[in-house]
């Protein structure tokens, strides 16, 4: 399986951003914003919370540009920091989870177009235990395999596989019940 890799950002853009060029920094954000925002969105199922968290991730990236070695490292770093921040955020205080019935008021036009089934599935994912949510998102949004996920979440590969298996079984069961 091939992971989704953002169109490779030129290392030169990274170097310019590191030198304080805000246009280059904006280029980096635009390259990775969908990845970071979507990881948070699929974790919380809340667009406002996802945007706030994604902004914080990019601010942290701005402060850490000096330690980011390459475009590939940047992608890895962003996935890792985003998932860690999602988990930290939920441990600080469980955020409000959006119910299917409230979705029309809060979601964008694109989500209103989503099928009811997709929204139901996202709602169920947002209620899974935090690590199951993370590995599921990295697996199906980012198309990473367990050996890549385990480097991001710093867990043994068998634990990652077990989280994935449990998450899928739990979703199957809940979808069957509804």
């Amino acid at each position, binding site marked *: 399986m091939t992971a*989704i890799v953002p169109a490779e950002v030129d290392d030169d853009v990274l170097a310019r951003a590191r030198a304080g060029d*805000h246009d280059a*920094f*904006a280029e980096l*954000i*635009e390259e990775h*914003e*969908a*990845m970071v*925002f*979507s990881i948070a*969105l*699929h974790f919380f199922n809340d*667009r406002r919370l*996802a*945007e706030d968290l*994604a*902004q914080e991730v*990019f*601010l942290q990236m*701005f402060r850490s540009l000096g330690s980011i070695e390459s475009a590939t490292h940047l992608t890895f770093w962003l996935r890792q920091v985003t998932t860690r921040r999602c988990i930290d955020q939920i441990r600080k205080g469980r955020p409000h989870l959006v119910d299917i019935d409230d979705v029309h008021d809060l979601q*964008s036009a*694109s989500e209103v177009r989503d099928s009811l*089934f*997709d929204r139901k*599935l*996202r709602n169920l*994912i947002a209620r899974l235990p935090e690590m199951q949510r993370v590995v*599921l*998102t990295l*697996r*199906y*949004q980012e198309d990473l395999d367990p050996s890549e996920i385990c480097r991001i979440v710093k867990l043994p590969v068998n634990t990652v596989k077990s989280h994935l298996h449990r998450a*899928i079984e739990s*979703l*199957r069961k809940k*979808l069957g019940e509804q």
Partner: protein
Amino acid sequence: MDIESDLKRALRRESPPAGFAQRVIARVEAPLPRRAPWWRAVAAGLLLTVLGGGWLAHKEIERREGERARDEVMLALRITSAKVRSAQEHVREIGNR
């Protein structure tokens, strides 16, 4: 039901609301909150030290005065007690004669 393809579809990437990068850049460029000059912190520290020291000295003086007063009262009581005992012995001697 093919849950794998359902998950891929439900968890596809989405873009954040328009203007996201500009909002982050605006936060990066926002001036940092102004910090008070260093001498203000030093002056506040000195003032606190002087006030704290004065309060401690005052407490120490109060403690010593209290101890001295207590010692004086104890001495007076001891003297009074000795005098009363001596008077009692004198009265007892007169009675025995």
